């Protein structure tokens, strides 16, 4: 995926300003930055949820708006933080929706097999027939991920997946993200607020400030005292734990 000079203007205010970057395949890429830096908007644009005002998003050689929506949904999945599903839906029924781009609602036995596998992968078998509004936040998040897995896309975009989760569930979520990449070979792009999760679980970090990319590189390149202080405008210390840079800020 190739992003070129992306621009988005809200009410005369430029929130994304000439952003260009390339997304490496088969890696975990975290988008970080202060509030209002435009990272969620960039995520929205590259997943076609948000219309852009300028620039290109080239996906597998074709602009993202030129793709047929149905075809694109077999290659790229997005999970946003707004999952207020009003319907009475069981976990399995939710995961079944992941097959919609393929089946159009009429599931074949192969589809059912993919669904069962996704549920197993997320260890949700015992909740399979439970309604999602009866689940805890962490379980619901896992059910949503299972749906994304059933969607079987090469690219997975997650908008603040650790939001509203406690440390235990957030850490589990990040481990799942790592597994999506390492075991299932997916390219995962996520917006994160917690820099240390980005440092520990991703391959690349893309840091946004004021609608522009401040730094884009491997974790080691971005996680330095100078770079982080510049982005967040607070003092940082970088420590090394298990060979990975972790930051302390105060």
């Amino acid at each position, binding site marked *: 995926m190739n992003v070129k000079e992306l621009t988005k203007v809200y009410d005369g205010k430029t929130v994304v300003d000439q952003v260009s970057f390339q997304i490496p395949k088969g890696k975990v890429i975290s988008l970080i930055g202060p509030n209002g830096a435009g990272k969620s908007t960039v995520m929205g644009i590259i997943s*076609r949820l948000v219309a852009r005002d300028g620039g290109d998003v080239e996906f597998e050689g074709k602009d993202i708006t030129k793709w047929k*929506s149905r075809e694109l949904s077999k290659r790229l999945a*997005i999970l946003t933080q707004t999952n207020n599903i*009003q319907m009475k*839906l069981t976990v399995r029924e939710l995961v*079944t929706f992941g097959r*919609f781009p393929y089946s159009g609602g009429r599931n074949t036995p192969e589809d059912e097999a993919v669904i069962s596998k996704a549920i197993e992968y997320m260890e949700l078998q015992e909740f399979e027939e439970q309604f999602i509004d009866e689940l805890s936040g962490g379980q619901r998040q896992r059910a949503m991920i299972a749906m994304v897995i059933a*969607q079987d896309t090469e690219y997975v975009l997650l908008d603040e997946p650790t939001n509203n989760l406690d440390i235990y569930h957030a850490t589990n979520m990040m481990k799942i993200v790592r597994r999506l990449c390492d075991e299932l070979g997916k390219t995962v792009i996520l917006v994160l607020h917690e820099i240390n999760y980005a440092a520990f679980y991703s391959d690349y970090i893309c840091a946004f400030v004021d609608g522009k990319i401040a730094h884009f590189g491997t974790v080691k390149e971005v996680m330095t005292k100078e770079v982080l202080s510049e982005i967040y405008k607070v003092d940082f210390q970088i420590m090394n734990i298990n060979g990975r840079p972790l930051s302390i800020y105060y």
Partner: protein
Amino acid sequence: MKTAAYRSNVKKLTVMAVLVLAAAAAYMLVEINFSNSRLLKYALSLRAPKLIVMLITAFSIGGASIVFQSVINNTIVTPCLLGMNSLYTLIHTAVVFVAGSGSIIAVNANLSFAVDVVIMGVVATVIYSYLFKKTNHNVLYVLLIGTVLTSFFSSIQTTLTRVMDPNEYDTLLTSLVASFSNINSEIIVFSLVLLAAIIFALRRELALLDVLTLGKEQAINLGVNYDKCIRKLLLGVTLCIAVATAMVGPISFLGLIIANLSRQLLKTYRHSLLILGSAFFGMIVLVGGQLIVEHVYSYAVPVSVFITVGGGVYFLYLLMTEKKV
């Protein structure tokens, strides 16, 4: 996958279908004279069209309400918000006001129906297709426009009735209450054709309803052309309500009741089941209600009074029990 919940829902719907048939049979046969074949024929020829009209109305209002609620993503909105009721009232008042209650538009049922359908259809298309596109597909704007239009139409209507001849007003009042009597077969056939055309034109979008209720972002993620789909469905819903209203009068409040009864009973996201349930509920309420009106109250109280009173109470109940609105 045929889950246990799905099978139990099919069972519930079967029971309801039987109830609908029972109500229909009761309506056709209660207090009928079997001994005299000519009287029997006459009674049946009076009752059959009314029954058919009720079934069509229940189906179109019931189905349209479920679709409308799913498009807006809120289960306590009523299709009354689309403003078709007050537009109907305004059209009829304006006709009587301008041309008089004896004019051909007011007296000829077919012509009156045609005028209703054309005006409502044009207004619906302009508002719910064109304006919806203009406002960047914001469904909240649609509700707002509908509410504003409802008061707008009612204000004009009130003004007209205030300066109207009292005798004309008396005649007018009877036509402003939903009624299943005196609907001739041409109108029934024409309504059926219109409704069938709407459903046929929307067959692809209707199949996407289940996915749409996951919300805009999930629907797009799963490959649905959300804005276009919502626009077409909204237009279809409004036209369905318009056809039903043109046929029997202001009745769309019924939709709130039957759609929610269906959702409460079936507790599913499958719209094929929800729409059927809602239509069946509508049929039972209308046919049963009309039965009581005709044989217990001997036409003293129109069925829409029951619907409004019962619906109002039920609406309050929904508001109180709804956890998050």
